[in-house]
């Protein structure tokens, strides 16, 4: 502040000393002959320039700048929008792909399950049938096994009665024969 003040004082001093020396033809700047002319022409030229610039030129430049700014932001917005859209599309596409993959997997799984089930069912049925058959056969065998001594006895009784009839010619009571056969078979057993 003080520095500035002292500098201004110095400038004042120089100025006034120049004014004194101007009269002896030192500085043309301090010759007041054309001062009014310079002021007049300064006001005219600067005034016209200022009016034309502020009324015509500067609003246009400002408008140009604004239009460009608006256009650039618009373009950026449009680009952003498009990018978002493409992102969305990409997501959709991804979704579609995953969905179809899942679906395919589902189909495959279902088919496999169905086939497995079918196979299981068929095998079960088959096993059941086989078991039934085996059971039946076992039963038959058991039946046969159980029935065979009686049959043999019957046959033995019949043949013995037949034999006795032929040999002796006497009808023997079947019950007595069967008792004898039973006795014999018990002995052999």
């Amino acid at each position, binding site marked *: 502040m003080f520095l500035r003040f002292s500098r201004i004082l110095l400038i004042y001093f120089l100025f006034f000393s120049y004014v004194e020396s101007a009269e002896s033809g030192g500085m043309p700047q301090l010759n007041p*002959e054309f001062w009014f002319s310079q002021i007049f022409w300064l006001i005219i030229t600067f005034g016209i320039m200022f009016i034309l610039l502020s009324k015509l030129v500067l609003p246009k430049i400002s408008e140009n700048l604004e239009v460009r700014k608006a256009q650039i932001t618009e373009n950026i917005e449009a680009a952003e929008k498009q990018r978002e859209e493409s992102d969305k599309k990409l997501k959709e596409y991804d979704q579609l792909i995953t969905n179809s993959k899942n679906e395919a997997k589902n189909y495959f799984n279902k088919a496999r399950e169905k086939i497995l089930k079918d196979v299981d069912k068929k095998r079960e049925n088959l096993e059941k049938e086989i078991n039934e058959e085996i059971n039946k056969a076992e039963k038959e065998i058991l039946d046969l096994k159980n029935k065979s001594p009686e049959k043999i006895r019957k046959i033995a009784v019949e043949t013995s009665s037949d034999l006795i009839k032929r040999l002796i010619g006497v009808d023997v009571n079947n019950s007595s024969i069967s008792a004898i056969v039973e006795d014999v078979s018990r002995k052999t057993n």
Partner: protein
Amino acid sequence: MASNPMYQFNVYRIGPEIKIGEVDLSFTNASLFMVISSLAVLIIFNLGSKKNSLIPNKIQLLAELSYTFVSKMISDTAGSKAKPYFSFIFSLFMFVLFCNMFGMIPYAFTVTSHIIVTFVLAAFIFFGVTIIGFIKHGFGYLKLFVPSGVPVVLLPLIVVIEVISYLSRPVSLSVRLFANMMAGHTMMKVFGGFVISLGIVGGWLPLGFSVALTGLEILVAFLQAYVFAILTCIYLNDALNLHH
């Protein structure tokens, strides 16, 4: 007389003498360069604003860069309230810049090397800013001279200094530009004179200086225009946003 380094600042009449009453308003070489500078500004910026293509051509880019440069300078120093004064500060900056730059052409006249021109600009700014300050804040604008946080004992002294520094604004603003332009051009003329007087043998050193000075002066021409505009913004900031 042509070897006098101050000769380049002479103003002379071009064409007839125009007198209104006792006042001489003749068209001079200074007037000629004012017309050339303002016309150049108008032509360049008109060309730069004519066509609005999305990708600007060179002259449009120039105009738009200058526009954003000045608008950023104003919003940085004086805030958003200074927007209505944009076109004035822009015109001021461009006018001073073009006058300075046209002065760099050999044999051209430097309008801003005349104290009366810079003083009229600075005085206009000073009065304008003061009027704006009083319109915006009424007599509260006088608070500008009373900085806050100063001990009461020092207050009279500080107020006096603040008033003097405020009143010296147009002088410092105008003298800074005028003195810079005059000193630079005088120095270049002096070194140019050395080149001639030392001849082909010893003239190379001052020639080199002259070349370096030309670069420096172009820098100064831009810098002083920038300083002129930014100081205007700072004064405007004082008037618009009373901070003290």
